[in-house]
């Protein structure tokens, strides 16, 4: 059978966002794959060089629309590292609570897109409905639904809303009950398992060498979670377990994300109950020092990093953004070769693509 290149994208219902996957197909099985990105390149690193430190906050939100808060927080951490600031205790706990809610909302958004890809409209609707609970919580905290702009350099924008503790505990109980229902909906149906088990295998060595990070890495068996191993904010005061799974196939990635949501509920409960009183924000200096700052955070999609170079003025000299999906997608070839064309949907869906951060 003649091998031919097929373009899955850039405008294709399977790709969430604008990127193109060129696969070489021999009959139905994939022989070679070559992803192409860059369709949504906005030149954010160049934009940030012409804006003051505070004005970059809303831009950092718009890096990845699925998990806006974690990028906003990563930027704040980088500049705090550059300026050598220390965030007050309450600010750290508020950040941890907000980040974990954002993680659950982002994983639910992934679950919705993943179910819709496999044909289950009902999975999409259920996941989106349950995501609303956390979107409302974050909206009460920060003020908007998608781009929260909640973190500030040196703390958090607003204090927790009234009876925030009661609402978030109730939300955690609700989502844990719902995830139990999802197990029926997904793992109960053999059709879902047929489409997921043993598809898109990624070995442990490949995952580490290719720079895959986050849930896909932990799904391949590597027990490495930045929140646990390089604790930032007040994660060291909260005990939780990184989730791993030995197989490394699509089912493992699905499994890791579902249990990570349960872990996030545990973290939220501890963060909300242990939250001390007091200031949640300090006044950040206007002009940054000459020097470099590094932020390294566990984004719902992987290891997000930012490297800022300050030159004494109130604008950064250079701001480099490391996007987890940009590197994980480069490893797409190793997951795709040998599987069917219909599996591309499941494998690429498992990576929780967010093109905003890939193309910057």
């Amino acid at each position, binding site marked *: 059978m003649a091998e031919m290149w097929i373009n899955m994208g850039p405008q294709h219902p399977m790709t969430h966002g604008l990127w193109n996957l060129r696969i070489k197909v021999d009959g139905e099985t994939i022989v070679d794959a070559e992803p192409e990105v860059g369709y949504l390149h906005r030149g954010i690193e160049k934009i940030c060089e012409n*804006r*003051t430190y*505070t*004005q*970059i*906050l*809303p*831009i950092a*939100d718009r890096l990845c629309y699925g998990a806006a808060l974690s990028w906003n927080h990563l930027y704040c951490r980088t500049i705090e590292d550059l300026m050598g600031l220390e965030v007050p205790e309450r600010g750290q706990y508020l950040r941890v609570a907000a980040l974990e809610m954002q993680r659950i909302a982002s994983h639910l958004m992934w679950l919705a897109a993943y179910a819709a890809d496999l044909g289950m409209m*009902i999975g999409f609707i*259920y996941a989106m*409905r349950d995501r*609303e609970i956390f979107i409302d919580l974050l*909206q*009460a*905290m*920060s*003020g*908007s639904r998608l*781009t929260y*702009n909640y973190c*500030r350099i040196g703390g958090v*924008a*607003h*204090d927790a*809303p009234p009876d925030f503790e009661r609402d978030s505990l109730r939300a955690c109980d609700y989502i844990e009950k719902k995830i*139990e*229902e999802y*197990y*029926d*909906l*997904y*793992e*109960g*149906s*053999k*059709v*879902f*398992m047929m489409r997921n*088990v043993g598809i898109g295998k990624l070995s442990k060595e490949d995952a580490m060498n290719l720079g895959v990070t986050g849930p896909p890495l932990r799904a391949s068996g590597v027990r490495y979670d930045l929140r646990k191993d390089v604790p930032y904010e007040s994660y060291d005061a909260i005990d939780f377990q990184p989730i791993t799974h030995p197989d490394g196939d699509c089912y493992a990635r699905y499994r890791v994300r*579902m*249990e990570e949501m*349960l872990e996030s509920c545990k973290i939220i409960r501890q963060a909300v109950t242990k939250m001390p009183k007091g200031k949640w*924000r300090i*006044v*950040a*200096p*206007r*002009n940054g020092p000459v020097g470099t700052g590094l932020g390294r955070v566990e984004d719902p999609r992987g290891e997000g990093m930012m490297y800022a170079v300050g030159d004494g*003025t*109130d604008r950064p000299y250079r701001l480099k953004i490391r996007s987890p999906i940009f590197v994980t997608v480069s490893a797409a070839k190793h997951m795709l070769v040998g599987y069917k064309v219909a599996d591309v949907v499941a494998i690429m869906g498992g990576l929780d693509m967010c093109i905003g951060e890939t193309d910057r």
Partner: protein
Amino acid sequence: MAEARKKSIRDSTGIVVRPIKRTGTQVVRSLILGKPNTILYPYQHLKLPPTYRGKHVLDFKRCIGCSNCVQICPNDCMWMQKLEDPELGKIERPGIDMGRCLFCGLCVEVCPTVALHEGVEFELANRDRTKIKFDPRDLRDDHYADSVKEERQKHTIPVLDLDKCSGCEKCAGECPEMCIAMMPVEGTGRKKPEFTLAKCEGEGKCAIVCPDKAIEMKDVWESYFEMPEPKFELKSCTGCGACARACPAGAIYMMDMPGTEKTLAGGKKGKPKKRAVFVLEKCVGCGKCFRACKFKAIEMPGVRK
């Protein structure tokens, strides 16, 4: 309970029954027990939290027209508009172009007098692009600001009105924490009380004892951002008073310097040269004096022209 779920695929007996049972209970729940999750939008509305960032609301009385919000806006969607107001006279208030605004809330936080707030109205769609450029008067609502619980702390500090102050040093002696020091103003031969606000407890003894009521205890909001401070050089100041007129917070006073009169043609004494004096407690760091001064007498690091 997650471990209990760890069944291998082969014995997931339910093949297709369990998902159907799950969706079935959902039908029962939303049909008979409760109402479905969605609301019928045009007829029912969601209640939004007070912190929601929607269309802006401007309190004309609190706003002093310092254009801090215009400078911090990442998308340059605000502009200062000169207005003629019956009771406030000639004023300058910000207008907002909602077409460019990204509702980030930075302008609300940088406002020194907490005049700008974000309301909960979000239905701003319009067929005509010019209609979403809101004029300050459209945003005006003078009593919205009082109803909003403001997170920033307010503390009372002594505020000096230099015109009334005669330099009598009574307040310096009176202050229990000794935070007032009388500093000579160079060139004018008069003295001006300097306040170190960190030590000030805000009892207001100095305001009471001041004979000509020059000091007044005012509530000032703490600022979240470090605002630039103007630095003044006497040499290049020609006393034109442009900065005093430009300063929205009234922190710059023009004092005349005795002994610099020039003898005019008819042998009469001309008016003495003036110089600007800064009361830095009132300064909100907007940079208007820096831009107004044509003779580079005022330096502000980091503020662009």
